[in-house]
């Protein structure tokens, strides 16, 4: 009986691993094709056409900030310096206990204003509204903290006056032309495009001066470099490919653009959501599919948002456990979308993929590895096959990681230094062993925390966007 079970488990793991990697391989091929087409398209498109147009739709940038005293000046200055003709920046001070509001006050000469603030989507109480004398495009909302970024964004959503809102993290840094670039699909098809996601890349190790990125460098720590590869794979392959089929379910909360009326129509962000960005996009899909509307949610790989990644195992583990909790927290309420006709490809492909290859991945992979080891010990598995299977899985997955680096090389080429590329490629060989197994443990912890009802959010240790020079 046990032998039969072990045999079955080993075959399951084998085909699970094979199919997961084949899906990614297919995604890599799609991504290479679409990004090549995108590059060609961009060559005959000049961003100045948008800045010179009197009809460019206004955008409101929503930047929630919670205890961001270290980086708030630099990051908001960075937002105000973005190239876009019609811009409004709303910073939401989400009950910060540090000097965040004071820093904003000192830097941007805030003065209190009385405004009509209609609470179209729910959010915690507002303590005050401030307009900047230094830059009239800046509005600061000081609010009570409800313990979630979603609630802070909702407050900003209520005050936004533009047809599009762009949600950014106030500890991230956008490239100067990123708003122009993220608007390209909207301007091409304003009736159908309701949401656009940009790419998030890792800032650690790069040179920053006065809120601007001077030189992109690879981080020094191994744990950070592996995250660079992970992000490249997730964005340049995963999201690029899913967006081609209009099945992209995640637009990162650090940089995403949405139609304001639609976000308000679905009640804004769900305040209690753990993965509020994923939850919002899933609800947008649901809302539009149920209404039978023709729409597109797109990904654009060249508007870049640089963000600081965790630089120690403890913080990274906490972040990944929270992401996995967020995944389950969104998949569960949307389980009724699975394989039901109104939800089309989203219900038939994208959501099942997330259930099987993302949510259950830690259980299946860790259990699978355990059964392989037991089978090998009990002599039910030839040692030769065991080693071959491991090498195959490892080599195949490495193809995908190197493919992600290739995608970056073919298209966006942010790492100009030879050393950086060599290191990036070298680390592709470590991503699938031992990092992947460690990652699975963190994700399993996330599942366990969710099932225990532990929804607490512990802030990550950040260094801030100070001026830094690369090693």
């Amino acid at each position: 009986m046990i032998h039969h079970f072990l045999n079955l488990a080993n075959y399951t793991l084998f085909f699970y691993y094979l199919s997961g990697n084949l899906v990614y391989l297919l995604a890599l091929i799609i991504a290479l094709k679409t990004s090549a087409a995108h590059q060609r398209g961009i060559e005959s498109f000049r961003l100045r056409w948008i800045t010179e147009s009197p009809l460019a739709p206004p955008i409101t940038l929503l930047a929630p900030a919670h205890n961001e005293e270290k980086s708030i000046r630099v990051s908001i200055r960075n937002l105000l310096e973005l190239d876009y003709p019609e811009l409004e920046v709303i910073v939401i001070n989400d009950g910060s206990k540090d000097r965040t509001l004071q820093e904003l006050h000192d830097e941007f000469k805030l003065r209190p204003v009385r405004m009509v603030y209609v609470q179209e989507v729910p959010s915690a109480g507002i303590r005050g509204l401030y307009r900047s004398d230094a830059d009239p495009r800046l509005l600061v909302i000081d609010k009570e903290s409800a313990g979630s970024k979603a609630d802070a964004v909702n407050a900003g959503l209520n005050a936004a006056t533009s047809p599009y809102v762009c949600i950014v993290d106030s500890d991230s840094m956008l490239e100067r032309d990123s708003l122009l670039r993220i608007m390209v699909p909207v301007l091409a098809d304003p009736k159908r495009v309701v949401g656009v996601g940009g790419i998030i890349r890792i800032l650690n190790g790069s040179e920053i001066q006065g809120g601007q990125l001077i030189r992109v460098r690879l981080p020094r720590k191994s744990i950070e470099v592996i995250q660079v590869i992970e992000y490249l794979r997730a964005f340049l392959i995963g999201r690029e490919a899913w967006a081609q089929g209009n099945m992209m379910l995640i637009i990162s909360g650090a940089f995403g653009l949405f139609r304001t009326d639609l976000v308000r129509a679905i009640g804004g962000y769900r305040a209690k959501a753990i993965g509020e960005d994923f939850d919002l996009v899933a609800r947008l899909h649901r809302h539009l599919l149920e209404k039978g509307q023709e729409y597109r949610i797109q990904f654009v790989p060249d508007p870049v948002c640089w963000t600081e990644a965790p630089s120690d195992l403890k913080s990274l583990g906490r972040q990944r456990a929270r992401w996995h909790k967020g995944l389950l927290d969104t998949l569960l309420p949307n389980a009724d979308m699975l394989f039901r006709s109104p939800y089309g490809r989203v219900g038939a492909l994208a959501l099942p993929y997330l259930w099987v290859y993302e949510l259950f991945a830690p259980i299946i992979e860790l259990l699978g590895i355990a059964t392989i080891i037991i089978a090998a010990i009990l002599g039910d598995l030839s040692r030769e096959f065991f080693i071959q299977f491991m090498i195959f899985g490892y080599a195949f997955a490495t193809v995908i990681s190197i493919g992600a680096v290739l995608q970056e090389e073919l298209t966006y080429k942010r790492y100009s230094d030879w050393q950086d590329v060599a290191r990036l490629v070298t680390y592709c060989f470590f991503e699938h062993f031992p990092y992947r197994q460690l990652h699975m443990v963190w994700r399993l912890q996330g599942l366990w925390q969710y099932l225990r009802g532990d929804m607490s959010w512990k802030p990550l240790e950040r260094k801030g966007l100070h001026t830094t020079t690369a090693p």
Partner: protein
Amino acid sequence: MASGFEILHRLEPSAFVFKAIIGAIAADVLLLAFILLRRSYRMHYFRKRDARVFELRQQWDALISGEIPFETWRTKSFDRRIIEDMALDAFEAAAADQSARLLKFLRTSGLIEKRIFEARKLKGWRRRTALVALGRTRAPEGIPALSEALRDHDPEARNAALRGLGRLGSPEAAEEILHWLAESGLNVPILPLQNALINCSRERPQILLPYLQLAGPQLREVLARVLGEVASTSLGAELIGMADDELPELRAAAARALSNAQPGHAVEVLGELSRDVVWFVRLRAVVAIGKLYDKKAIPHLIKSLTDSNRLVRMRAAEGLVDLKSELVSIFAQVVKTHDRYGLHAFLAALENADLRNRLDAEIRQAAYSGIEEDREELLVVLSAGKLTEPQTATPAQPIETAAQ
């Protein structure tokens, strides 16, 4: 020879996995080799290009004047691309006299002719690149080739042609676009189309009128939006006709156009539009009235301050606050409306413009008939931010956030 099925049948799982390992490792090696080769090639290419750009920059005047014969570089695609890029970049930033010199160079060197040929004969991204370059030259002889590309079956090529024509910025280019629209309808994204038409019809907005009258509803809306941006005083009568149109988008565009053209009777027509049944027409009219900075607009803006739509109220308040010289009398009229939402909108606009203290001082110093009765009430309302007696409710339910 064994069939594929037989080979698969003979493969043991172990052999299959072994072959898969070989395949995966080979793929890893190939990817790595590709990355390395590409990096080396690009490094070499850009080094060579930079050196050549530097050399050509040293000889720039001789190149432009024809002192260096065009034949020496025109047939070398590497040099030609560099020189064309340099010339077009310089052309975009050049003053009038420099532009003429550069355009002459682009013509006599045959670069424009070559781009016209490529725009007609090539396909795909090469054609798109040629179309964009042709647009950047702003040479009228490029119009026929760009116009032909508007009829391409590839939407990207149509977009590139549209943008190219837009760069030309001439009424002739606008005629071509309008003719094509009349012929094939709307089959390009609206925003690039509007941008191109705005650029091209600014000089002669009248060319839009016949199409505006005869086109279908969707195209009329697009053209009206363009007219809203480029309208001039000479179009006064046509704009009044547009303000009576059955399509709300056209009435809204008429409002925008009236604020740009500013014919003598603009305030009255916009006043009418500010009472339209459709909210966005009212909004556009109120924004347009505000831009006129005309005291005659005050009654219309005060009326709009009591509108049922929050955005209309906000814009009306901003328009009123922009009339800085009349702040006291405007504020007195706002208070007399007894509309607390209108008052909130006005105070918000006042604070956004940082004029609250100025209004306070002006109320204290104001001297006009009846001011003594009003003065105290105005000061109380201004400092408390609310009316002195209970008033009727209006539709929206805003939450007032008190300033600290």
